[in-house]
């Protein structure tokens, strides 16, 4: 009866989510309803729910999560400073002459933006508004142009410092200690947000590298799809100083933030604080900073931060009740009794997450699914960093995949109607291929994700 209610509850949550009321409240509301039904039927122990205030206060007092509002503030300030616009304009002239050069510039700007803001929606929209029209005007194949914008926009999830990796790192770290405690290891190893950042670096760069290889290959085989800039456009090139002026500040910020985390000098939270101030300085130097911009950035940060944390709160209520119905145990038993052992379990979890990625976004999956499945997988001996990176790239792929990938919705929202949706869909296909390739590479060579954190942190 309990298991049956757990399954029905999950299905009911999904059905209710589709109605379109905020996810955080739907998650919590529907599961509360089921807790009520369970209590009436005498199969749900309501005393479990008294753990709630402590859990909620745990969210407030968790020092790792403070990095979230700070990284968001940093991203918002960089966006207000119009860093992307400047970067794009100048990078274009740097690479613009050769076929494919513009595409490569867009890809690199996407990667730099990803590393500095980590906000996918914002990156896709910015690139879509600035880069896409330029590429189309230049005679780029719309398919390729759209695919490139989408793919480089999603890099924000995997290239550190990404907000998603902060949340995922936090969830994995509690799952990891839980898994070890359950195995009777009372001096558990830990996994930190910094570990995950480091683990993501090589896979992230590998993705960017392969994206670039694809663009270069296209430029070589069919240059007419990616024409270079004309002489007139090139004559309007800004000079070297201007290029350096736009490139250096954001690059310096990234190096400072990532470097201090990698070097073990600062925690991700401290680095995020310094990064936010650095972003404000960049905006100030560019003359884009005033009281109104600051207040506005603050309020935007509040909205995005509250959105993230209300999901966390809703998901806490959901998982408390799911556990009360024995759902955790059910998932545990199902995953650990699969034929083929660990590999099958991972494959199924990845597949489920990929499909969930069609309707839920990364934050929701991190808060809802990871706490349920991660302890089981970790108890099977899966490396937590490797698991985190696999989840991140898997979800990134999901967000690119038509027809539901939400990156595509963002881009569709800012693309001129002359570009058919089907072209958008076909344009991302090669990038999805690259994603799957990288996913397979990391699956076969876990060292791609685990080597760097091992070297840096021992």
């Amino acid at each position, binding site marked *: 009866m309990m298991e049956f209610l757990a399954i029905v509850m999950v299905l009911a949550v999904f059905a209710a989510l589709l109605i379109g009321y905020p996810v955080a409240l739907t998650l919590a509301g529907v599961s509360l309803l089921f807790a009520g039904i369970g209590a009436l039927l005498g199969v749900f122990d309501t005393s479990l729910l008294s753990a709630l205030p402590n859990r*909620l206060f745990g969210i407030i007092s968790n020092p790792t999560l403070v990095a979230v509002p700070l990284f968001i503030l940093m991203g918002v300030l960089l966006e207000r400073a119009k860093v992307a616009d400047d970067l794009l304009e100048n990078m274009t002239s740097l690479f613009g002459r050769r076929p494919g050069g513009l595409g490569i510039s867009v890809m690199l700007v996407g990667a730099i933006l990803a590393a500095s803001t980590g906000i996918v929606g914002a990156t896709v929209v910015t690139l879509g508004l600035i880069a896409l029209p330029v590429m189309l005007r230049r005679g780029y194949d719309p398919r390729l142009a759209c695919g490139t914008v989408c793919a480089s926009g999603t890099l924000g999830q995997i290239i550190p410092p990404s907000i998603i990796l902060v949340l995922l790192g936090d969830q994995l770290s509690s799952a990891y200690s839980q898994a070890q405690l359950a195995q009777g290891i009372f001096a558990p190893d830990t996994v930190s947000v910094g570990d995950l950042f480091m683990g993501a670096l090589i896979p992230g760069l590998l993705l960017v590298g392969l994206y670039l290889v694809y663009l270069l290959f296209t430029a070589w085989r069919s240059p007419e799809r990616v024409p270079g800039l004309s002489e007139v456009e090139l004559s309007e090139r800004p000079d070297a100083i201007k290029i350096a002026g736009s490139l250096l500040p954001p690059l310096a910020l990234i190096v400072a933030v990532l470097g201090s985390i990698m070097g073990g000098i*600062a925690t991700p939270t401290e680095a995020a604080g310094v990064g936010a101030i650095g972003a404000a300085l960049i905006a100030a130097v560019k003359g884009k900073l005033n009281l109104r911009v600051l207040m506005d950035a603050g309020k935007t940060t509040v909205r995005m931060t509250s959105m993230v944390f209300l999901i966390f709160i809703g998901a806490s209520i959901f998982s408390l009740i799911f556990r009360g119905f024995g759902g955790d145990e059910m998932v545990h038993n199902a995953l650990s009794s699969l034929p083929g052992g660990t590999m099958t379990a991972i494959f199924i979890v990845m597949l489920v997450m990929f499909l969930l990625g069609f309707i839920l976004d990364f934050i929701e999956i991190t808060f809802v699914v990871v706490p349920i499945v991660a302890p089981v997988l970790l108890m099977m001996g899966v490396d937590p960093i490797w698991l985190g990176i696999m989840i991140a790239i898997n979800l990134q792929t999901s967000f690119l995949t038509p027809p539901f990938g939400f990156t595509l919705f963002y881009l569709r*929202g800012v693309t001129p109607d002359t570009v058919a949706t089907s072209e958008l869909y076909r344009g991302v296909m090669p990038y999805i291929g690259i994603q799957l390739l990288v996913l397979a590479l990391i699956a076969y060579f876990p060292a791609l994700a685990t080597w760097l954190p091992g070297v840096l942190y021992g």
Partner: protein
Amino acid sequence: MKQIIVIINGINEWIGRFVGILTLILAVVMLAIVVLRYGFSMSSVWLSESVMYLHGMIFMLGAAYTLKHNGHVRVDIFQRRYTQRQRAWVEIGGTVLLLWPVALFILVMSQPYVESAWRIMEGSREPGGIPFLYLLKTLLIIMPILLIIQGLAEVLRAIQVLQSPTPAVPDPNGEDSRHREDGF
């Protein structure tokens, strides 16, 4: 009815502006901590604990403000195609069946927890820490209250939409205005 909407919106808008400033202060405090630690090898329990207070206030007080600005993520596969009236019904149903019960639940569950913190005037466990842990814990009660009243404003707004005589056609600006503004 209009009056109530205006008052509630005003309250949460004001709170939004206030916690907006807190995010900026949070960044400055964080910088100060880093500079003190690495520049002067000093640390202050008070300063590092204030980070927790700022952080907690930002999202606990900001949740209702975010609701007002429709900043909480929705699954919008079907939402996109809703008419204004359908959206209004979703808001009413969602508030009454989901938001209010959830907020009330958090409120009721947290009340004894917060009360016991107040009874002992709970402070920091660290010597020299901020002695206001009981105030910080009170956020667990303030957040649901703010959500409940903002929910009321949303319901009243939705009722206004339903009462207005506009025909039930899809809202041309609906997609943008009801779409989440940022994503990850």
